[in-house]
């Protein structure tokens, strides 16, 4: 038994930490979050050169062929710097194509994703705001030699940047919500497809409304089996959820470090505030939240990589815990910093807002606790 990271993984962590400390400073993050794109071509190319855009994609499609445990290491480092840009969106789109696509579709898109030429995303949720099968009301109806897609997608990550959007649609009404879902590849510029950027509380995470107004796509746009999208979707959701949990752990860890350092130097009543138990004990609580979130996330990553039967349970446990933990830790960080923590100038609000957007992405703690309840046959 070995519940630790390998030497290669520790090297990846060290490389990533140095890279982001140089390339993704607070100044950079603040510039990007004010802009619609949230990323520069230069930065995206550098991510590609590091091999990180194709980290979990197979080597035959230009990727590095690593697993979710490796991705967890990278995501933690991205979370530490609240990295903006369409990395998560492209991961989602790429995983959808990997899980559901034909050899031709994979060949068309995955190498371009890995080398940075193409960005991708996944349009799943709708105004009903549900991360499950029942939330999918958008339709795809056969028409001539293809399909016509209609509906509204909401909370779609970076759809305004995506060269290709994987759209989740309902193609058949069945006994269960899980049956009758299909995925379609919709390239940028397809008539009737419109991505509208929405103002978001977390400016480092760009969300879109995607309107599908009779979007005509050829038969070849169908990704995976018709009516059978649930299996690949649930697999990719597990993997992306674990990746997000890791990003949240990284953010929470950074907030803990910022707060601890501040508590050592900030003096009140003649003593560093960290010497007061009111501050010290809250910092200890933060550490417990961070470490627990990590333990659950690391286990989930291993479970997903090894495809053990418990992987869905492990993933839901991690997301339930990390959702609460990051929210609590980033709020405590602001509290322990006092007034300065409430300013725009200080970086804490970036983490606080990222915690909030991450909380509801892929389901919040309540959603995942109920999933845990179901999976333990409660």
């Amino acid at each position: 038994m070995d519940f630790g990271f390998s030497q290669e993984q520790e090297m990846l962590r060290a490389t990533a930490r140095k890279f982001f400390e140089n390339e993704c400073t607070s100044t950079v993050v603040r510039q990007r979050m004010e802009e619609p794109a949230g990323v520069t071509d230069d930065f995206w190319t550098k991510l590609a050169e590091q091999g990180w855009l194709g980290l979990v994609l197979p080597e035959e499609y230009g990727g590095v062929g690593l697993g979710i445990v490796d991705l967890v290491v990278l995501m933690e480092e991205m979370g530490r710097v609240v990295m903006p840009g369409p990395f998560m969106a492209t991961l989602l789109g790429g995983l959808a194509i990997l899980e559901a696509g034909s050899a031709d579709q994979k060949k068309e898109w995955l190498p371009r994703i890995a080398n940075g030429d193409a960005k991708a995303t996944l349009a799943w949720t709708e105004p009903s705001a549900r991360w499950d099968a029942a939330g999918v009301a958008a339709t795809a109806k056969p028409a001539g030699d293809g399909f016509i897609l209609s509906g509204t997608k909401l909370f779609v990550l970076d759809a305004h940047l995506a060269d290709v959007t994987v759209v989740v649609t309902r193609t058949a009404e069945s006994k269960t919500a899980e049956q009758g879902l299909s995925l379609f590849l919709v390239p940028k510029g397809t008539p009737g497809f419109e991505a509208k950027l929405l103002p978001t509380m977390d400016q480092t995470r760009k969300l879109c409304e995607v309107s599908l107004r009779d979007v005509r796509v050829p038969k070849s746009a169908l990704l995976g089996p018709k009516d059978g999208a649930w299996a690949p979707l649930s697999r990719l959701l597990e993997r992306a959820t674990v990746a997000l949990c890791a990003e949240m752990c990284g953010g929470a860890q950074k907030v803990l470090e910022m707060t601890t350092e501040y508590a050592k130097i900030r003096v009140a009543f003649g003593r560093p505030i960290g010497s007061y138990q009111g501050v010290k004990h809250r910092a200890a609580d933060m550490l417990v939240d961070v470490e627990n979130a990590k333990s659950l996330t690391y286990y989930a990553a291993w479970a997903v990589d090894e495809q053990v039967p418990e992987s869905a349970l492990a993933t839901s446990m991690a997301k339930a815990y990390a959702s609460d933990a990051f929210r609590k830790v980033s709020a405590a960080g602001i509290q322990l910093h006092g007034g300065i923590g409430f300013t725009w100038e200080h970086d804490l609000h970036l983490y606080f807002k990222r915690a909030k957007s991450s909380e509801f992405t892929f389901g919040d703690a309540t959603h995942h606790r109920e999933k845990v309840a179901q999976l333990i046959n409660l």
Partner: protein
Amino acid sequence: MDFSLSPEQDAFRERVRAWLNENIPRDWSRRVMASAEVPRAEAYQFLRDWQRKLFEAGFIGLTWPKEYGGGGLTFVEELILHEEMALAKSPQVLNILGVGMAGPTIIAYGTEEQKKRYPAKILSCEEIWCQGYSEPNAGSDLASLQTRAVKDGEYWVINGQKVWTSLAHIADRMMLLARTDTDVPKHKGITYFLLDMRLPGVTVKPLRQITGDPEFNEVFFDNVRVHESEILGGLNNGWQVGLTTLMYERLALGFGLQVRLRIALDGLIELARRMEKEGRVLTKDPIMRQKIAQLWIDTECLKYLGARAITRLLKGEIPGPEASIGKMIWVETHQKLQELAMEIEGPYSQLARGSDWAVEGGVWQYTFLRSRANSIEGGTTEVQKNIIGERILGLPKG
């Protein structure tokens, strides 16, 4: 990262499982639980016999060196054993303070003679150990302890008092911290004695606790004469030796704690399946489902935390933050669990053992009350948070 076990470890698990399946007396919990009508003495005899059985099968002291009666195995086997004991709802190890604390400390600091004399009898439960640390005026601030030991020839004469001493009423030996030098800073004048509880002048008085049970005791020393050969780790070195014991305490008891939590959680879920609230089975209540799921997550989390700690130990690294926070998480989770049990029972939670209406014979009332001590015993939560803040996060002392 790899959670899978080696073929040898898998085989070990099979062996443990088969043995437990064959050897656990079916009705043990009824015979031993506090709610039962069986006198406590009989319960202790049962647990003594049980540990003896485990010992004879080679399942006690797995990580101890073979030359002192142990198994010479790793913490992975220890973890497997505890997991299987949990799954099989096995009785606990009675001499846990000896196995978890006294033994490893003696192996670390003892003379050859001490190492030959004590550890084997700890494992076989021939000698039960208790821990003489806390005093009425020295709890969290342990180093200010006042029990004195004064030299008289080859002997040391002990006077003073210990308190909250679990198992003292059945113990043969005590890990005793006493002050042997009053002219030096308080940490530097303490010595660790291996005390024979049957020496003249040792008086054990049961202390009735919140549950109504006398589970722990006051121990009085009135001119107790201890031979100098019973000093462990050198004169005035008791603070360092005692801290080692505490480190083992966290480590060794840690495995058992997660297991106990899991047993309690399984019991709680069964309870929730049976109880109804306003005409609905409690496991169908959405709020109850949330609370139980959170307990499940916290309990599993403790297991992974343990796995991270074991990994560090196996790699020869020093314990990281995960070792220090384990106790605290366990306490919070267990107290939350016990409170939830009361919530599940609702108005029935008011009824204790003795009532025919009491749920499950009133056992949850006992465990609920007992759980209040968890955040005090073995280092209060407040002290744990100071330790985390200062030693892990590097915050300045107050």
